[in-house]
């Protein structure tokens, strides 16, 4: 699965994207965040507060508890500040 990071989540993790192989127990975005937090201290720090993490699946805003599939493009980011 391809995961993109933006804004301070990107800078804290230190990369803008990565490819991960999902464990079977990862069913939705919230599970994914919990799994990513185990990848190291930078991931754990960047993703510690789910309240400020937003997700897009295949370029659509979705709730964090939305189911995910292995071929999805997932983006994790803080609330947007467009305009």
């Amino acid at each position, binding site marked *: 699965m391809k995961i993109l990071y*933006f*804004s301070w989540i990107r800078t804290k993790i230190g990369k803008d994207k990565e490819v991960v192989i999902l464990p079977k127990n990862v069913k939705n975005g919230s599970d994914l965040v919990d799994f990513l937090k185990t990848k190291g201290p930078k991931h754990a720090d960047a993703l510690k507060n789910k309240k400020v993490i937003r997700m*897009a699946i295949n*370029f659509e*805003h979705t709730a964090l508890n939305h189911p995910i599939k292995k071929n999805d493009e997932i983006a994790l980011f*803080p*609330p*947007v*500040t467009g*305009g």
Partner: protein
Amino acid sequence: MIKIQKKDFNPQIEIKRLSNSKKDIGAIVSFVGLVRERSKGKRLVSMKIEQYSKMLKKEIAKIEERARNKWKLEDVIIIHRYGLLKPGDRIVLVATASKHRKSAFGSCEFIIDWLKIKAPIWKEERSPSSGLWVKSRRDDFRKATEWKN
């Protein structure tokens, strides 16, 4: 028309293009967003605008479509810049054209309100001593969601 670009735009040229596009336009309302010189008491050196390019155009198109469903519009231009900008630089242009002024006023405000909370863009304000990511404002969320569908 939606444009996502690094380079600056000229609002006058864009508005002229809009008014030339159809002859049934009686009103054009435009909004231009600029980089402020100061933020929370700090002088800004620059603002970096980050975007999720594959999602941004789709998201803006959805907002435009909602505006067109809500008001009878003759034409719409939305331009959003990204990259490194300086205080005073233009960030965004929204211009809406309609037969009468009410639709143009309402739709222009609607579009910018929804860009604030849906367009996948993040701004980093850089002062001489630090860089701070702009936080989303609860007020922006309230204002956008106040519009009735």
